[in-house]
């Protein structure tokens, strides 16, 4: 399994989310791809996810000052009409680690998406954002959604209310 793992020393920090990348051998695949972000958005279930893992590694290693830059790049893929469901899933999982109210504003319209998978993947992001923006978005979507998407949203609202006490 050589070459299929990623390790980090956790020492990257800069305001530019991609600072240092050029010199870092861990991100070889990312460097050699013309538009690695687009590759993630085009992923289908079961395809090689190396590029998504590389971006995840970048985000996991990032200094908090780099989060807004990554958030912007991830939101650009998430809101691209050509983004696949699987690609959206990878993006949302990574975004959930750093998302701010900016992500809530950009994605809240999909919390009650008629595609159950898209609706839940969006909640992966929004539910992890602390603060009133996410509370309001989840409550509003719970009122608009149907079926188990609505049940999931209602549960999220209750859990956040309980945990806030």
């Amino acid at each position, binding site marked *: *399994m050589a070459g*299929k*793992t*990623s*390790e*980090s*020393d*956790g020492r990257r920090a800069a305001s530019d989310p991609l600072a240092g990348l050029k010199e870092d051998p861990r991100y070889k695949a990312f460097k050699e791809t013309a538009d690695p972000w687009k590759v993630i958005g085009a992923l289908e*279930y*079961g*395809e*090689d*996810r*190396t590029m998504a*893992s*590389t971006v995840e*590694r970048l985000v*996991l*290693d990032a200094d*908090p000052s780099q989060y807004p830059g990554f958030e912007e790049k991830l939101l650009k893929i998430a809101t691209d009409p050509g983004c696949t469901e699987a690609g959206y*899933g990878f993006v949302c999982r990574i975004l*959930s*680690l*750093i998302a701010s109210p900016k992500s809530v504003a950009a994605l809240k319209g999909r919390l009650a998406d008629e595609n*159950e*998978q898209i609706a*839940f*993947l969006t*909640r*992966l992001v929004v*539910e*992890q954002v602390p603060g009133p923006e996410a509370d309001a978005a989840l409550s509003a979507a719970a009122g608009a959604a149907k*079926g*188990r*998407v*609505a*049940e*999931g*949203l*209602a*549960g*999220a609202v*209750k*859990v956040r209310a*309980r945990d806030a006490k």
Partner: protein
Amino acid sequence: MSMTRRGFAKAAGLAAGAAAFPTIIPAKVLGQQAPSKVLTVACVGVGGMGLSHLSQLLGRDTVRVIAVADVDAHHQKRAAGIIDEKYGAKGCRMTGDFREVTRAKDVDLITVATPDNWHALTALDAIRNGKDVFVEKPLTLTVREGQVLVAELRKHGRIGQTGTMQRSSEGFHRAAELIRNGRLGAVRHIDVLIPANNMYVGATWKPEPVPEGLDYDFWLGPAPWAPYTAQRTHYQFRYILDYAGGQTTNWGAHYLDIAQWALGMDESGPVEVEGHGVFPSSGLFTAPTRVDVRYTYANGVTMRMRTRTDGVYDGNIIFRGEKGTLDVSRSKLRSVPESILKEEIGPGETRLYKSRDHFGNWIECVKTRQAPVSDLAIGHKTTNLCNIGNIAMLLQRRLAWDPVRECFAGDAMANRMLSRPMRGPWSLA
């Protein structure tokens, strides 16, 4: 042999159930402390580990297994067949929806041997419906699930045993008791070895048709939806972080539990964790292929858990103290010097909770309403070590952990990993 919900509910009635199965009056009707009462059990999750639970239960005359729940109809039928054969009677009830047994009025006890992402939800529903529970290890998928589970256990006054059965083993008990009574002097460092993790199964995988009899959407439960592929489900689920935590939690739950016990840390834990594991960057499996986590307790004791490379499928824990070392696994108990193992625990010294039968201890505690040897609160604290170990390995940095408040200091990203949104309709609410 399938059963509709309506059919199951009908069978759950005492009168209806009597036609095939002997009438077992649930103990709660007569009082669980009545020594002669037979407790009724429903087993949730009857795959590999669930069958092990059955083997532990079927030979006892203090309990009667009356129902099984599993999202795989083949598992249901196999388990019900074993139960009916054992009791020489037909009528073990089967369902694909665990709520039909956790909410059944004629069930006293629930065992949970589902994939890890279902442990908390199943046990919570049982506890909230007045059942006592036996929950497989690792107790929960996230720290937050464990907090809610323990709070609800206490709120509802239920008895809950975690499946960390090494606490009911003589060797581990002896080792922990020797250490607690200072036979090694001050413990300085602990080494934990756990079996190798998931094999690499390729950079890609193909969605496959869901096999007949498997309610795949229910199998996924609170986890994000993903297409079925055979290696995602039975047994191998533990190598996918959406459903489990790899060997960090699978074996770590056993051996870190012994460390916590020996150190007297059942109500606490380490204050720092650092991880250097290796994760697959492609393919179906997402759990670490090489585990390497270091923990530091407030008193300076350090512990390192690593993947073993000698091919042995067992864990191993080595306590290193001022006066010697103590090496314990399921197959051995050794000390250097050897004289440590010959020492007796004298009057007035610390005696640890003694159990030699993990299921028996749980059943006895259900009757006495005393806490079992691996009370869910203890299982929760141990599972915390496993889960923060995986988080530290993902983040590859040193994290300050508050073992009482159960959160990280100064790392918002790490704290986001302590809980996970659940796919509807499932929720911890």
